[in-house]
């Protein structure tokens, strides 16, 4: 590969990466800063006002990570907004709180609490409503389900895998055998399917389980399909079980398997998402350990029974091993072992994903009065992907067709990291090519600093004042931290280039850029925490 190609191609790669979705607006709606309307109707001014209110609340909430990043608002406002609006709505590794808000509060913590309660079907008022008695009542309900105090319960919702694990470990197994009715449910069933479901039930529940006895009496032992629908009806109205149904729906939504409304109602879309989970599990596990649909779902007399214990334990908890951050390293390792043909196929498949992502307008929208949103946390999805990373090289094409919702989540994360890695590289190269200028203005006041590689510095001022100097000083400090990051990226990427002497190695190169970007980011995070960089909140 010619050297001109090395840098030009990277620039072209950056241009070809999928556009960012209008994710910030979705989160602002989710957190009640914008009304639940179709995102396209908002004017730039409405969005800007909502963003300002969101930032003001973030500052007031005093989150440690935001305090460290507050200066970045001066340079890359969009990235900061994206990062913290995503974090505020994250239920994989979301915020945990030391205290509950004061009554009447409408700040960030109150909104996050309402947002999470709403996700789990426990909140129906506006998200921006003041924290008050109704919040306290909903939290009490959540605390009752979780069998802990209100603060611990809401903190549990910051990690959906954790709350699922905790519930499975503390509640009786039969609390997870779920029943729901739906006009869309096919009433036909086969005796063989009934036996499979029953067999799994006997395996999962103790022999003296009250549910098991009722199930045997009202479903298994009846003649000529004269099921006791009274039993099924009572079961379908159990509050805790409806909470678990919602929990499973949220799990499915997180993985890109469910794109229906988050309403706790189970219809065709929910059932299909469970079938898709079975399909995905097939890719994920050995033959013996696979989740089986006939053991999971049973359709009887207009009702559907779901063995939520088996599903949550087998699919959501047991299969998740290792750390999601290792995913890119694992793909890199697989790619380095692959032959040229496999690499070429992988590259073509990634290009296909890129094209589809670019073509797809993945935006939150209001459908039939319901706000359909897209989950944007990635921890869980990357962790699951790690389990069948080998198939990403050989079978990615097939996976795109069979599990597009899941695959697009994984590669969206990949493209985001790639974009940021290349951006940091370009910043570093800009610095190498010429003087770096930092400009701060305020009315007719200017302060400009020009820096050279050998640290010479020229500061030019016009009518300076103390606020301008302070802002400029903060900017300069932040810029130097960012510059060091960019130079590190330049070093690492150039070293990778040395190995990338043929076009065939391009997929290897891209994945390694993502890998080094993640590694250097982690190092800088640690550095930031250890030196406790002074930060100030700057209003620009």
């Amino acid at each position, binding site marked *: 590969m*010619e050297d001109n190609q090395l840098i030009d191609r990277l620039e072209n790669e950056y241009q070809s990466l999928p556009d960012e979705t209008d994710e910030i607006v979705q989160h602002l709606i989710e957190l009640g800063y914008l009304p639940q309307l179709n995102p396209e109707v908002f004017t730039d001014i409405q969005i800007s006002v909502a963003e300002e209110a969101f930032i003001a609340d973030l500052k007031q909430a005093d989150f440690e990570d935001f305090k460290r990043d507050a200066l970045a608002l001066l340079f890359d406002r969009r990235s900061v907004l994206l990062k913290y609006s995503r974090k505020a709505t994250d239920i994989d590794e979301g915020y945990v709180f030391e205290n509950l808000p004061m009554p009447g509060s409408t700040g960030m913590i109150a909104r996050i609490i309402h947002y999470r309660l709403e996700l789990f079907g426990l909140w129906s008022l506006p998200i921006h409503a003041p924290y008050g008695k109704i919040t306290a009542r909903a939290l009490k309900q959540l605390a009752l389900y979780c069998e802990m105090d209100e603060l611990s319960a809401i903190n549990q919702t910051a990690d959906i895998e954790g709350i699922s694990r905790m519930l499975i470990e503390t509640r009786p197994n039969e609390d997870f055998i779920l029943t729901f009715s739906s006009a869309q449910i096919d009433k036909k069933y086969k005796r063989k399917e009934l036996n499979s479901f029953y067999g799994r039930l006997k395996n999962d529940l103790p022999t003296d389980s009250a549910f098991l006895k009722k199930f045997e009496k009202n479903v298994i032992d009846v003649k000529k399909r004269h099921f006791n629908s009274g039993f099924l009806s009572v079961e379908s109205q159990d509050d805790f079980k409806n909470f678990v149904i919602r929990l499973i729906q949220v799990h499915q939504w997180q993985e890109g398997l469910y794109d229906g409304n988050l309403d706790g109602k189970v219809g065709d879309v929910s059932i299909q998402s469970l079938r898709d989970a079975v399909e995905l599990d097939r890719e994920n596990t050995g033959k013996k350990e696979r989740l089986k649909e006939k053991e999971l779902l049973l359709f009887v007399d207009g009702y559907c029974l779901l063995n939520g214990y088996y599903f949550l334990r087998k699919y959501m908890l047991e299969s998740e091993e290792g750390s999601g951050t290792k995913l890119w390293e694992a793909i890199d390792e697989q790619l380095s072992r692959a032959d040229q043909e496999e690499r070429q196929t992988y590259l073509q498949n990634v290009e296909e994903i890129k094209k589809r992502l670019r073509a797809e307008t993945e935006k939150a929208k209001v459908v039939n009065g319901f706000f359909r949103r897209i989950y944007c946390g990635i921890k869980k999805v990357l962790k699951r992907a790690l389990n069948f990373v080998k198939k990403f090289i050989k079978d990615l094409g097939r996976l795109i067709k069979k599990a597009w919702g899941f695959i697009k989540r994984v590669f969206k994360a990949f493209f985001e990291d790639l974009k940021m890695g290349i951006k940091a590289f370009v910043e570093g190269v800009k610095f190498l090519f010429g003087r770096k200028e930092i400009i701060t203005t305020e009315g007719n006041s200017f302060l400009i600093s020009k820096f050279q590689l050998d640290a010479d510095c020229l*500061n*030019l001022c016009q009518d300076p004042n103390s606020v301008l100097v302070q802002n400029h000083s903060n900017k300069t400090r932040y810029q*130097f931290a960012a510059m060091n990051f960019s130079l590190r990226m330049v070093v690492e990427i150039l070293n990778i*280039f040395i190995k990338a002497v043929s076009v065939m190695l391009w997929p290897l190169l891209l994945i390694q850029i993502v890998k080094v970007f993640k590694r250097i980011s982690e190092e800088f995070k640690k550095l930031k925490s250890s030196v406790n960089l002074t930060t100030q909140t700057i209003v620009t």
Partner: protein
Amino acid sequence: MSKIDDILNRLSEGIKDITVLNINTVMGQLDIDENGKITLQASSNIDGMTSKIDLIDGDITTNISTNFYEKYPELVQFHQSREAKGGDIIEANMSALTSIVGALTGINKLLDSSGDS
């Protein structure tokens, strides 16, 4: 000239003298030309502070105008913070640059040996 040679040349130009650190803070009316280049108006009154730090023998020479010293303590402080950071920045940049030059030279050698350039 290839992009890599271009970067190498610019790097060597950018680090002509790493033994002397020059920090200049000057104040006056600014002009912006058609290329976006910002300069001080020649006719304006110029105040300011300059520092020249010899990193080998440790000599520091600072010149500062009285008006600047009295009226703009924040700018004096900012200037001083740049002085204090200068050594660290040189160290960090040089470390990164050594690696960058090494990598770029490696690419050039590789391309020469493959006859690809």
